[in-house]
């Protein structure tokens, strides 16, 4: 009786796992941005799901059973890397017991491999400097040029897993890169009038964006990455913002508003809550939507300020 039930469950499970030949490739990404780019490159060949929502801080997650479950079924697992997901991805991958997506396997992709990271510490780091990332700043998807690099990496992985669909994937990637170039010209045009505008950001997460679109980040609300602001730091920051005439305080939706609001009252700079990811605000469904939204919000805020 018992053995029969066990056999039935086992056979059932085999049926459940195996018929992948016709189904789309199951891709699991750590963030919505990666999922959006996978959709562009993979089209109907893939079924993609992100482990975080666009409103979530990807630094702080736990290896929840639901994440393990998703990873256990994936054919391809993609992460941002550079230490962004170090607190949860390793535990998820071990618990998922899916040989296809273990680091080193063809179904595992760390898209930072070809990225040239900014802010690689030039001297030895330790945690007195806060949450420093020894491999460099991991918020690189906020530069659309890096979006192109990410799409190339994703295409390479998809082609190795779906060799007979290589042509389509390659075409999709090229088309994505072309549209990105086109959009880039548009975004740069819009941001041009505000070149070198001085801003403060909450976390050092807008470095890549600022560099690409010519914003000048003069300071951070956090004294060190991941470290809560002290009164002494805020006093210094207020003085600095006044001196530099900083116009905006940019923060992600998951940071508390009270400190930015205080800075705003003290300096007259405006607080701007910006989503760093696809899905961070309703309506941002693609990688293009994200930068359209960011350009909209920034140009509006900066034009009022000037």
């Amino acid at each position, binding site marked *: 009786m018992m053995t029969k039930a066990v056999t039935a469950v086992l056979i059932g499970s085999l049926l459940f796992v195996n018929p992948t030949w016709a189904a789309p490739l199951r891709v699991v990404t750590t963030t919505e941005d990666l999922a959006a780019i996978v959709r562009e490159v993979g089209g109907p060949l893939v079924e993609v799901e992100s482990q975080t929502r666009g409103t979530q*801080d990807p*630094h702080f997650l736990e290896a929840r059973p639901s994440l393990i479950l998703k990873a256990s079924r994936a054919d391809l697992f993609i992460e941002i890397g550079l*230490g962004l997901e170090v607190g949860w991805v390793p535990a998820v991958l071990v618990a998922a017991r899916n040989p296809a997506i*273990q680091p080193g396997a063809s179904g595992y992709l760390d898209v930072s491999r070809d990225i040239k990271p900014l802010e690689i510490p030039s001297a030895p780091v330790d945690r007195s400097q806060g949450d420093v990332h020894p491999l460099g700043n991991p918020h690189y998807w906020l530069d659309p040029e890096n979006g192109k690099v990410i799409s190339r990496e994703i295409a390479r992985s998809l082609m190795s897993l779906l060799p007979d669909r290589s042509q389509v994937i390659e075409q999709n990637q090229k088309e994505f890169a072309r549209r990105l170039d086109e959009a880039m010209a548009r975004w740069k045009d819009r941001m041009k009038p505000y070149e070198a505008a001085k801003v403060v950001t909450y976390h050092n997460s807008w470095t890549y964006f600022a560099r690409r679109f010519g914003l000048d980040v003069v300071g951070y609300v956090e004294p060190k990455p*991941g470290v809560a602001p002290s009164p002494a730091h805020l006093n210094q920051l207020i003085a600095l913002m006044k001196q530099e005439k900083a116009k905006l305080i940019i923060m992600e939706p998951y940071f508390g508003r009270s400190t930015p609001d205080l800075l705003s009252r003290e300096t007259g700079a405006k607080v701007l809550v910006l989503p760093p990811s696809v899905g961070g605000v309703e309506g941002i469904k693609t990688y293009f939507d994200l930068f359209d939204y960011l350009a909209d919000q920034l140009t509006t805020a900066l034009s009022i300020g000037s």
Partner: protein
Amino acid sequence: MFRPVFCLIFVFLFHSVVEAQTQQGTGSRPGLQGLNPEISLDGLFAAAYFSEPDNLNFGGHDPNQTGFTLQNLELTLGATVDPYARADAHIIYLIDEEGESVLEVEEAYLTTLALPHRLQLVGGQFFTRFGRINPTHPHAWDFTDQPVIANRLLGPDGLRNPGAQISWLSPLPFYLELIGSVQNAGGETAVSFLSNPEAFEETFPDLSFEERDVRRFEDLLYMTRLKTAWTPSDTVELVQGFSGLFGPNASGKDTYTKIFGLDFYGKWRPLDAHGGFPFVALQAEAMWRKYETSENSEDNLHDRGLYLQGLWGFASRWVVGLRGEYANGGDETDPLGDRRYRISPNLTFYPSEFSKWRLQYNVDRAEHLDDKSLHAVFLQFEFLIGSHGAHQF
């Protein structure tokens, strides 16, 4: 004799850490650094005040005297071994009540990564995956001390021994995991089973220790566990488990122990949480033990107990918690078998992910002390240096 060896290991490992960090820092040879194991050292200390000199904290890693306790100095090493497996080791150093330094091989095990059909094997020395609290390392506890019922049934250091474990994640659309393990039933970390003479004497002073040979499969310790999880929304996750333990015990030639446990964990965290806050987490665990003492079933020991705890991360880096406990072994004179109630509120502050400060108060009522209230206050702190450990759920 372990001490010099341990010191050497430390010197060697920290040399490696410094080297690894230097390499990371210059960014010159990141490839090399990837070959070093992840290394971390966790220190867990407590200052305690007990209203009575004979306190009721019997856990091996509990604050154990008025004054200071080194609860746990844990060296963790882990790395992938090859494309097929990873290995983890947790070596513990602590100073006991008598001031003796004690070295424990808490865990050292291999985990397979490449088995088909969602199977996973674990082999080595490991915590039995019974319930929630038993496999949790002391520095990851939400309270300063071990729950009473876990202390009584699973032992002051938790239930762990060399053995092998297999687990299977089902392909069902929800999370369902089956775990089975077989481990040695003897030694001081298996007090409800074959134990050893010293641990047995401490745990069951009224019984006599029977030396039993291990000849048959029935002489080993078996565990089965069913774990399921349910995710009603992006912000809530609920985990339930049922575990059973079966193995021989040292009170007779043919006596066995059975322990059953039910556990629940639920966590709510909004999607816009910053640094993991705010959150609410509830955890509960109930356990039953039947300990056969002889042919006469009337003499068998029956124990039961539970703990319920709630945590509320009410502000960034701040957590307030409350735990209530009950245990009863039906022996009104035995400190490890009487009826016992304990309530523990606490407040924890995390300066960062890598350190914590915790203030906890215990009010304790034990039947063998005529239900007189005992009080205890703990101030605990923890530091973690080295590799960033993954957060378990």
